[in-house]
């Protein structure tokens, strides 16, 4: 692999890394600014997972070894599965635990 190919890989990895961090920050900002629980859940599961995926991809490229890349892919896979479960469980718990717990309360808070 020519040196310039390595340089391209490094730039690609840097770009992915930057994008990953961007999604992490987006996830946190989403968690802070969204008005109610379910929409924050949206920020938590979507943004963070993509952020983790991009950072992992960047790391895999930077590391170079296929075995390591496989382990990183495994990490990402489990992250997606458990955040899927978390999203389901929290979605179930979110409206009930909001204030007095009646669905009406949920509609009123989200302004519809």
């Amino acid at each position, binding site marked *: 692999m020519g040196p310039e190919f390595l340089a391209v890989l490094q730039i690609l990895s840097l770009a992915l890394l930057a994008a990953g961090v961007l999604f992490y920050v987006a996830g946190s900002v989403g968690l802070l600014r969204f008005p109610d629980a379910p929409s924050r859940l949206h920020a938590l599961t979507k943004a963070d997972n993509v952020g983790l995926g991009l950072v992992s991809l960047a790391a895999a490229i930077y590391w170079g070894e296929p075995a390591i890349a496989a382990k990183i892919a495994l990490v990402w896979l489990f992250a997606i*599965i*458990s955040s899927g479960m978390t999203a389901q*469980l929290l979605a179930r718990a979110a409206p009930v635990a909001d204030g007095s717990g009646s669905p009406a309360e949920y509609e009123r808070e989200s302004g519809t």
Partner: protein
Amino acid sequence: MSAAFDILLCLMILATAGIALFVRGAFAAIAFFIAFGNLLGLAWLALGAVNVALAEIAVGAGVTGVALILACSRLFELGDNLADVRTPLASRLGSAALCLGFTVMLAGVVLTIPPGDRLSKVVAPLLPGLGIENPVTGVLLAFRGYDTLLETFVLLGALVAAWSLTPDASRRLPPTTMVMTDPTSRIVAEAFTRLLAPAALIIAAYLVWVGSDLPGGAFQAGAVLAGALVVATLGGVVVLPRLDSLAARIALMVGPLTFLAIGLAGAALGGRFLAYPDGLEKTLIVTIEYALAISIAAGLALLAIGPPQPMPNNARADAR
């Protein structure tokens, strides 16, 4: 750059710990305490102590956080809303002065000690004799095997103490239903457990096997299995056996029993207590580690879920 990372991480650790200790809401305190545990795992990674990071993350996320959340939710069911009674100002100021002085002195003393590794040069030459490359496993299972043996009995003792609390009255009452009452959540948890359990088993076996040469080991594997067992129990997939059932006791005792038996066998064969006969070190250590992983998994899971508590009458109405 890594110094900046260390300082930022330490500041966050101090912040989360401070908030966890002094925030008013009970559940906020526990939430910050779990975040504190996660950041601690990162601190151990930054220190390069991957074995400890594995243990801290597995135990912090898998057992301590769960035990506190379950305890807190049971206390709420029982009406104790963990309200904090304000201690008189005088005693608060006195304690503050005392602890501040103590912290300043301790930090000063710590700064006089130059960090550096103490015994790794003593440990390194002995490892080939054991056929192990991971020095931490070598220290834990061989050089300080006596500590680890006693410590597994501490875990067993904690469990026996927790279970001897159950009054006979709880025999007739259904123990607090550990299963989620909301059916859809339970389906989600069941589905997740079907996926998580095999993965946790494989990873735990991997951690024990790789523990001889790379970061890993019995405690970390046991804690991972315990986390999986807890999710399985909460999802209703598995019902943790009571301590007086044979299955639980065998699982709990297989680790300490194997360790003690191998230790005594070492002494009986002319050597000394806990001395591994030459050539057999690695096999014996790996056997002990697998047995320990099983006992630690069972022990930590039963401790995290806690002994069966007699239900207060209002909560029991929901449970049915």
